[in-house]
């Protein structure tokens, strides 16, 4: 059906109808200098602001916030905008496409190449806290960890002895990775995964599987018992 909405259209909107959204942390110099350039050379922003409609005559910036900030600094009354779908996913993708957000990959299911590319990107960032880690080791250990698909947080990485410790280093990983963990299988026999549980949890597992647990059993004994 033909639609009468403005979604998809390029429109020249009044600045005062547009909410800035999340704003930009672009240095003031870049904004002001670009505003000056725009005023001197062109009166039109050929790179449009990406907005969504949030009400009658009301829009919100979801991408190219820099262009919006420049238009404001340049004192434009109207700014050229693309009207995007008012959905969260449109906003997320617009931000990434505009280079304002880093795309994240699902570490629970990522391939070796994806992990390698993401870690390399982080290490190459100026002032990266990950500088100095042994990239090849980190890639290997993360990729090969059998528990990776069950990780609920990134902290197991700190136990992989690959130079990524809790704090700034681990936090840096959050820029590029998110987790969509699989649920644990009903019966876990992989020792490396069993190691991630506490002794009490392991005892409960053994009880569920109706295994006889010696009273004096310690964690290594339980792991041995359950992985047998």
């Amino acid at each position: 059906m033909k639609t009468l909405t403005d979604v998809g259209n390029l429109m020249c909107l009044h600045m005062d109808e547009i909410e800035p959204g999340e704003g930009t942390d672009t240095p003031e110099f870049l904004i002001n200098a670009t505003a000056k350039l725009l005023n001197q050379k062109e009166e039109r922003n050929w790179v449009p602001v990406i907005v969504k409609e949030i009400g009658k005559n009301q829009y919100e910036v979801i991408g190219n916030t820099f262009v919006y900030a420049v238009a404001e600094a340049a004192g434009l009354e109207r700014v050229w905008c693309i009207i995007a779908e008012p959905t969260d996913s449109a906003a997320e993708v617009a931000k990434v496409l505009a280079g304002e957000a880093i795309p994240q990959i699902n570490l629970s299911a990522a391939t070796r190449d994806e992990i390698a590319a993401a870690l390399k990107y982080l290490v190459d960032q100026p002032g990266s806290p990950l500088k100095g880690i042994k990239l090849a080791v980190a890639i290997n250990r993360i990729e090969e960890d059998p528990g990776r698909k069950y990780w609920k947080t990134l902290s197991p990485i700190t136990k992989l002895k690959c130079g990524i410790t809790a704090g700034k280093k681990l936090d840096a990983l959050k820029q590029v990775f998110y987790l969509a963990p699989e649920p644990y299988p009903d019966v876990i026999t992989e020792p490396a995964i069993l190691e991630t549980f506490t002794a009490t949890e392991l005892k409960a597992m053994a009880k569920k599987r109706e295994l006889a647990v010696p009273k004096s059993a310690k964690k290594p004994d339980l792991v041995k018992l359950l992985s047998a």
Partner: protein
Amino acid sequence: MNMTTTKLQDALRSLPTDAKEPIVDLNFVVPCVFEALGFAQGEFYPQYVTGDGSVDYALRKNIDENDNFICTGTQPYLLMELKGRDINIAPDSTGYNSVVKQLKRYLLASNCHSAQWGIITNSIHIQLFRKHGKVVFPVTACLEINPDNVDEVIDSFREKIANPSKALTVAVYNNKGGVGKTTTTVNLASVLHRAGHKKVLVIDLDPNQQDLTNSLDLSLLDGKFYTFLSEKDANLQSCIAKYSINYKNRDVDFFDVIPADKEFAEGDETKFRQYLRIDSLRQKLECIKSDYDYILIDSPPNWRIFSQMAICAADVILIPTKHNNIFSLENAALAIKKFVPEIQRLRGDGGPVPLPVFFNGEKITPFQELEAQKAIDEILRKSKSENPNLRQYFYPKETKVSKNREIFSIPSYANIANAAFARIPAAYRDKTANSYYTELAKEYFLQ
């Protein structure tokens, strides 16, 4: 979180799910809704005799301490027709269609000339209607109410009821050309002014033909109306021309006109879509709605930006057709079942609504009338499953009992067509033409 609840919320929560009409009445409408709408004790009159049946309530604010509406029952302002929760009045249900018909009948009855508003509710759904002259049209969608939104909904009703806009905005539209839209617009403006003593503004929104502007011998605008629509704080007064006739050596003003704007004819549509929204005209006309009784918009015969803006700005749509032009009938049906609902979805307030079609300016013999009826029946048959309500726009007088299939008709009359050469609407120059259009005004608009 604010834990206090309002009377309306409490009342809605405590209503049984199958509450019959008297329960809805006693526990929801009387103790809460009237007060929330701004009416006090003595300002609502139950079982009000409209002259065509009794409506559940008539309401009016008392003017001073000597006035008591419940005693006098004169000059009702708002009518309310109630149903129980056992009757479904969700949009497009049978119950809905029948209660709307009932409300319209009451609003147009002899004792309710003064009534300007109508409400239907069963405490699950509620809808507000406006009456302007003879025209009854929705000003909100049929809204579902619940404890979360009831205060907001009733408050918005109160706000609207307290500030009725003076003007009725009418788009004259048919997707088919040559059906006499412009002739209808100027002559209707003439008789509304002359016979109805109404203040009328006519807008020529057909920039490619500019027929209306030319037929009144007015100059085209050179971008002012475009500026008014696209810019903030632009002035409308500079776009308005007075249509006046020299009478006994002095100019007598008849109605106001916004002539066609050259800018719209010369620019391309892509550009306009970049600067204007479909509802731009609607929003911009708000500021002059208290200055006129009628705003008539002559729209182009297509479904592009100017017709869309015209329909979006309108409260009601007047659709001229020709009985001997099957395309004009098919296009009328297309507008009613497809284009108007598109705008209704965009606006979300239940409007605009089409008025029943009429036959315009062709000689019609009984045989031709029968032929036209056959053509209409065929159109209705084809769209019956998807649009069962289409029938009422072609045969408004037909009921379950009455087989009255009369369609209002403006007879053929050479002086109407020739008037364009004289640059004066026929209704001003010619008694017969005047009487034809006065009939049209009375059939659709004047009470």
